[in-house]
């Protein structure tokens, strides 16, 4: 693995691509912050509509671009949260506890700067931990055979389905829908046609890009247009005032930042929890550890630092289960899987073995992105503050333009536009009926590898599956036996967090 790590530097600093990698990463960060700063526009939507751009460029350029959008979007949400008490993303809800109070006191600049520095510190530290962990975990993952992989995939899918929405069985049903949709096309072992219903356009399966954009971007647009753009934020009311953040003030928040980073990093590695819970947990931990908890909620810098460091610290570690086992931990990483698959790179143990240097190059780029993050964030704070005031009536149709263009360029097939709209409507209905579409997308993406691993297991067992697993594959047997228990514990934990923080993006 260490050779792969060193190889990653060689790939990243290839003179032919290094400049473009950083240019695209900066563009991604800028766009992420821009969208994050727009109240009502989520990072998820930004990732979904910008995903197609990554399809047509080298993975070393495209995936860091999306990671930039991811990082920038999570931070960008704090800007309207601080200035106008409207969180740009769900991850920034905890920032509204202290941000607007500081703005009212005339210290908006200080609040925005502590949000930026805490986000970057949390992000950078967790990225370094991610790189340190990914090698050993990938090395262990490589020892797994098809039976173990099938068992792990099954467990991960059930855990994510169970923890993603409030009602366990609804998550599992969405997972089953995703697995069914993933079966449309060809079976992964015999390549026999399945469930194409005579429609030639889906004989190779439902195209992933229109499905992801439809499921994750269009419902956000539908929700946003339920009300016409009556709530326009007056540009004159958005002012960045007050003194800059001093080194002493930042130093005073360092303990909180590192505590929140630890919380965010741990949460990032657990599938199905996410930034929202991390931000609330970071905030709650900072408040209980503070000597002056009564100041929290009334304009406390540490409150912003705690929430922002925690939510950004989730970003890097979500890649650990993704890259080592092929399991995306949340809806944002599901979209990243789409980018990997488009380049013929299926996340999982084999990816680390076959493309280790490339994966490490992407991870190193992710660490270095934090330097760009701090520069772009610092320079563009006044600009992003103005973004808050842009009218939705103009932005929503433009989002549709990106969504449709991105879908079209995938296969230049009008049928894909229909798939986009159908999945958009499905996603909107699901949202309104309180179904989470994340398990659906995960079932769709992981269904084929699961079926393939299951098929290989059946072949290895020579028809005697149960005795093969329980007598010859003790790890598989242990995972199968422990799945209900782990699922129950994770579900209980997620329900407790949900009740405690009411966290739902």
């Amino acid at each position: 693995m260490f050779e792969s790590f060193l190889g990653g530097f060689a790939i990243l600093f290839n003179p032919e691509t290094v400049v473009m990698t950083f240019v695209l990463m900066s563009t991604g960060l800028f766009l992420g912050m821009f969208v994050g700063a727009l109240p009502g526009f989520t990072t998820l939507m930004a990732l979904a509509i910008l995903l197609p751009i990554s399809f047509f460029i080298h993975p070393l350029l495209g995936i860091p671009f999306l990671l930039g959008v991811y990082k920038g979007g999570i931070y960008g949400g704090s800007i309207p949260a601080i200035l106008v008490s409207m969180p740009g993303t769900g991850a920034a809800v905890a920032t509204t506890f202290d941000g607007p109070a500081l703005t009212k006191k005339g210290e908006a600049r200080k609040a925005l700067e502590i949000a930026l520095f805490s986000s970057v510190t949390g992000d950078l530290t967790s990225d370094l931990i991610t790189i340190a962990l990914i090698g050993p975990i990938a090395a262990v993952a490589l020892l797994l055979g098809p039976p173990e992989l099938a068992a792990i995939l099954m467990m991960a899918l059930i855990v994510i389905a169970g923890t993603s929405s409030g009602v366990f069985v609804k998550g599992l049903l969405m997972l089953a829908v995703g697995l069914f949709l993933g079966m449309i096309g060809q079976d992964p072992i015999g390549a026999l046609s399945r469930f194409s219903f005579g429609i030639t356009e889906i004989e190779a399966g439902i195209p992933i890009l229109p499905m992801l954009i439809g499921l994750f971007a269009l419902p956000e647009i539908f929700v946003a247009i339920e009300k016409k753009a009556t709530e326009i934020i007056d540009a004159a009311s958005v002012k960045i005032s007050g003194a800059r953040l001093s080194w002493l003030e930042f130093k005073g928040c360092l303990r909180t930042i590192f505590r929140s980073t630890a919380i965010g990093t741990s949460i990032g590695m657990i599938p199905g929890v996410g930034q929202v819970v991390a931000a609330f947990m970071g905030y709650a931990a900072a408040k209980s550890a503070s000597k002056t908890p009564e100041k929290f909620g009334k304009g406390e810098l540490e409150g912003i630092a705690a929430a922002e460091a925690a939510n950004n610290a989730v970003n890097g570690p979500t890649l650990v289960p993704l890259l080592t086992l092929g399991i995306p931990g949340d809806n944002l990483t599901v979209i990243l899987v789409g980018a990997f698959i488009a380049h013929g790179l299926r996340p999982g143990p084999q990816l680390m073995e076959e493309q280790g240097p490339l994966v490490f190059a992407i991870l190193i780029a992710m660490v270095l992105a934090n330097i760009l993050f701090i520069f772009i964030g610092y320079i563009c704070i006044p600009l992003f503050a103005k973004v808050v005031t842009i009218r939705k009536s103009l932005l929503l149709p433009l989002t549709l333009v990106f969504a449709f263009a991105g879908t079209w360029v995938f296969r230049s097939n009008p049928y894909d536009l229909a798939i986009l709209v159908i999945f958009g409507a499905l996603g909107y209905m699901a949202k309104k009926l309180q179904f989470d579409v994340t398990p659906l997308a995960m079932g769709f993406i992981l269904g084929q590898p699961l079926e393939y691993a299951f098929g290989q297991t059946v072949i290895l067992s020579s028809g005697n599956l149960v005795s093969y697993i329980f007598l010859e594959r003790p790890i598989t047997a242990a995972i199968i036996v422990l799945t209900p228990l782990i699922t129950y514990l994770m579900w209980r934990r997620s329900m407790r967090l949900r009740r405690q923080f009411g966290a739902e993006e």
Partner: protein
Amino acid sequence: MASDTATGDEAAAGGRVNFNTVAAAVFITLAVVLFFIIPGQIDKPLINLGGAGMSNLEAETFPQIIAGAFFLLGVWYLFVSFRLRQRNLLRDLNLEAITNVLVTLVIMTAYVWLILFLGFVVGSVIMVFVMSTYFGNRNYILGFVVSLAVPLLVFVLFTKPLVTSLPPFPVDEMIPNNWVIYPPLKYLSNKSIF
């Protein structure tokens, strides 16, 4: 998972039969339909490949497992649904919201048609201008400038640096070649920027 009802944000319970019960019935029906269509919707192998015969693993096996899981989960959901106290958010939609969503769906459908027949840029200009006006933009000049500039930018981004294709404006079919605007439009079209 006995305490499935503990979802926190839910408000109105409604009767024993609620939208979740209806959704559960739909899922059960889908599972049954799935069982019936499996034999007809999965091709049969002409020869045994990949050890399929050796392991009795067929292309139908996994779909049957999923259909079975679908059915069992549907039944579980049906029983749980009577105790669920979730709000059907579709019922919260007022007339304005329903109208807006339907108008957007119509605009999207029309947009597909516009892209196919007028090309990406012209179709997008019309869609963005109409939609932004409908949703409250009253600065028409700004609306038109944005409607034109962004689709042009997206078109150039996808066709030039990303080397993909978007439907171009059908210059030859839409503009007579003796019109003044024909040569510049044809030039732009040939350069893949319109």
